[in-house]
């Protein structure tokens, strides 16, 4: 496997999880969650701290990463989001509130990085996590394990949403909050679960992305437009669309930069952000409802119809 493809796979699995987290929280609570940026960075720092202080591979700390992300999500829900949802705040107000939470978390991340430097003599401001990785079948283990984890999470979520009673209740709330409330579903707990899953996914996504890029305290701040681009590409309507959108954004960026820098030289690297942004702008202009809004069935139907017409 080519090196760019390996890092591309790792990076896009991370983006898939963060974009999925944004979509998850948006479809349940109508909140564009800015705090995904700092939740992701915190996830990376949890795995980094674990590896540095207790040794081992980064993968064994992922459960803690998920739990910590969920914890951050719960704080955001009980401290902030719940009051605003009860007040029926506008979408922009909800978004700004998570931005405030994100900046608060960012300051804590910076303080935590200072603390690590001071107390444990580490260098947490420029981290390359892949030095803690090992080889599996001749390639970096992360390129195999991380996409598998992302797919596993997708499958678990699918089973949760379709096979369990609470998952069905959750889908009902997403479809029609008023009607589901009238039939006795507690929307409060649905929102809480969305924040728990969303926070965990965001933190996990951040620790994934750090395996492919340099981990810094502002890592999330710099990648947040890409996470949103993934969610928008997915159409912000379905969880699966969001994860697919994030994955596509990541893999297009890596593939595009690789091919273009072969063609034009390494200076293309500096403008790599243009690729996902162009993709996002094109989606917004052509398919305002994202990938989920592309009338795939209709298109296929049309094609088959013409074929049938030719045959007869």
């Amino acid at each position, binding site marked *: 496997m080519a090196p760019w493809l390996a890092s591309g796979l790792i990076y896009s699995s991370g983006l898939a999880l963060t974009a999925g987290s944004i979509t998850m929280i948006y479809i349940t609570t109508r909140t564009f969650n800015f705090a995904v940026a700092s939740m992701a960075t915190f996830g990376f720092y949890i795995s980094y701290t674990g590896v540095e202080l207790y040794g081992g591979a980064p993968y064994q700390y992922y459960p803690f990463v998920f739990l910590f992300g969920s914890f951050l999500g719960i704080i955001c829900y009980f401290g902030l989001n719940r009051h*605003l949802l009860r007040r029926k705040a506008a979408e922009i*107000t909800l978004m*700004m509130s998570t931005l*405030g939470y994100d*900046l608060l978390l960012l*300051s804590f991340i*910076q303080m935590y990085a200072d603390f690590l430097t*001071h107390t444990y003599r580490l260098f947490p401001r420029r981290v390359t996590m892949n030095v803690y990785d090992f080889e599996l079948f001749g390639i970096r283990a992360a390129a195999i394990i991380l996409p598998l984890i992302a797919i596993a999470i997708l499958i678990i979520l699918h089973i949760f949403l379709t096979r369990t009673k609470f998952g069905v209740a959750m889908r009902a709330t997403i479809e029609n909050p008023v009607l589901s409330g009238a039939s006795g579903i507690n929307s409060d707990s649905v929102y809480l679960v969305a924040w728990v899953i969303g926070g965990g996914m965001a933190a996990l996504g951040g620790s994934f992305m750090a395996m492919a890029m340099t981990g810094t305290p502002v890592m999330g701040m710099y990648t947040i437009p890409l996470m949103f681009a993934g969610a928008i590409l997915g159409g912000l309507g379905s969880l699966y669309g969001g994860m697919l959108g994030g994955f596509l954004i990541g893999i297009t960026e890596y593939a595009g930069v690789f091919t273009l820098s072969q063609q034009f030289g390494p200076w293309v690297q500096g*403008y790599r952000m243009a690729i996902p942004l162009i993709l996002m*702008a094109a989606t917004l202009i052509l398919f305002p409802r994202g990938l989920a809004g592309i009338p795939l069935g209709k298109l296929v139907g049309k094609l088959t119809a013409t074929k049938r017409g030719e045959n007869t």
Partner: protein
Amino acid sequence: MTTENGLKSNLKEFITRKEVPVIVIILALLTYLLTSRGVPIILTIFIDFAVFAIITMSLNLETGYAGVPQFGRVAAVIAGAFAVGAIPGRILARFMDLPYGLDYASDTINFRVVPEINALLASSWLLSIGFLLFSLVIAAIAGAAIGWLISRPAIRLKEAYLGISLLAFGDFLMWVGHNWSGMVGGSVPIYVPDPFRIFAVDRFTVIVLVIFVAAFMVFIYMNRLARSPFGRSMRMIRDNDVSAAAAGIDVVKVRTQSLVIGSAVAAIAGGLYVIYTGTCTAFGFQKLTWTFWPWAFMMLGGIGSTFGVLLGVFLLSILRSMIVIFRYQWFGFLLEIGIDPLWLEFTLLGVVIIGVILFMPHGLVPEKIEPMLPRRNVRRVLERKNLAGEK
């Protein structure tokens, strides 16, 4: 009517009741500044206040009046800063037979070219003033162009989508500046010719005065704009774009115009800031400082009220500078576990945004609902109606 009366009423019309306290406060600040000159901390606070006042007022025009969630304020500021950093100096260098092409921004040439330009500027009043005005015009044009450009794909979108696209665009512009070293030096700061060099020692005081005058003019302009038909149509779109469209207002056109005007004003602030610091570097324009701080200022002051916005900028920028200046005296205990108290700036920012949203959703000075007509005319109409009723 005598001319004196006419002048009086003209003046009355020009300066409304709302603007009087602002003028008084600004005059008091300026006298304090001029009497206590030579205190760099106070000068820095003043310049920060004035620059961010302009930017926040432009943000208030787009977000408070027109209802565009402008999360890419930094883009317009960058446009102004880069334009002033890149263009006027090159033009002067062209006439002085100095390198003016891509190598103008190269770090081995720039630090030799700019002092020569500065020497020329310091020799002539006319040239200095012309340079300053030309820089500001260039900044405004660049800002308006960027505002128009970002409005093209994004303006028809729903509010949150629009906010995200604007945010991404601002980030992208910063990366372009950081990587394209031919424009403003890329990762190495480039020097900006200084039209205030002619004032020698008093340079900083004069800059404060100029930026204050600019901020005050923007304040007057924003108040005029808010009460104009254009301002009313902006607010109508913000409150309900469907009914505004039904009333015959071209929603896309008004939103685009508000973005263009706001971006031009913010770009002027960016240009002034670059001239004040004397250097221009892409990484100096982070969205944290130039988008999120203005948002916090605006939310604290009250979205949609220009006076409130000024108050928000004033209070918060003082608080922010206090933290930066006194961080070791007040928060020294954090240093014992190795934490730099500078990060408390972000904590303050987050706490302000959350606190305002939770406890004070309309800010310190909530937007007043203004009647379509001036109060005098409304009273006249009512009187006429009463008379008709009595008859």
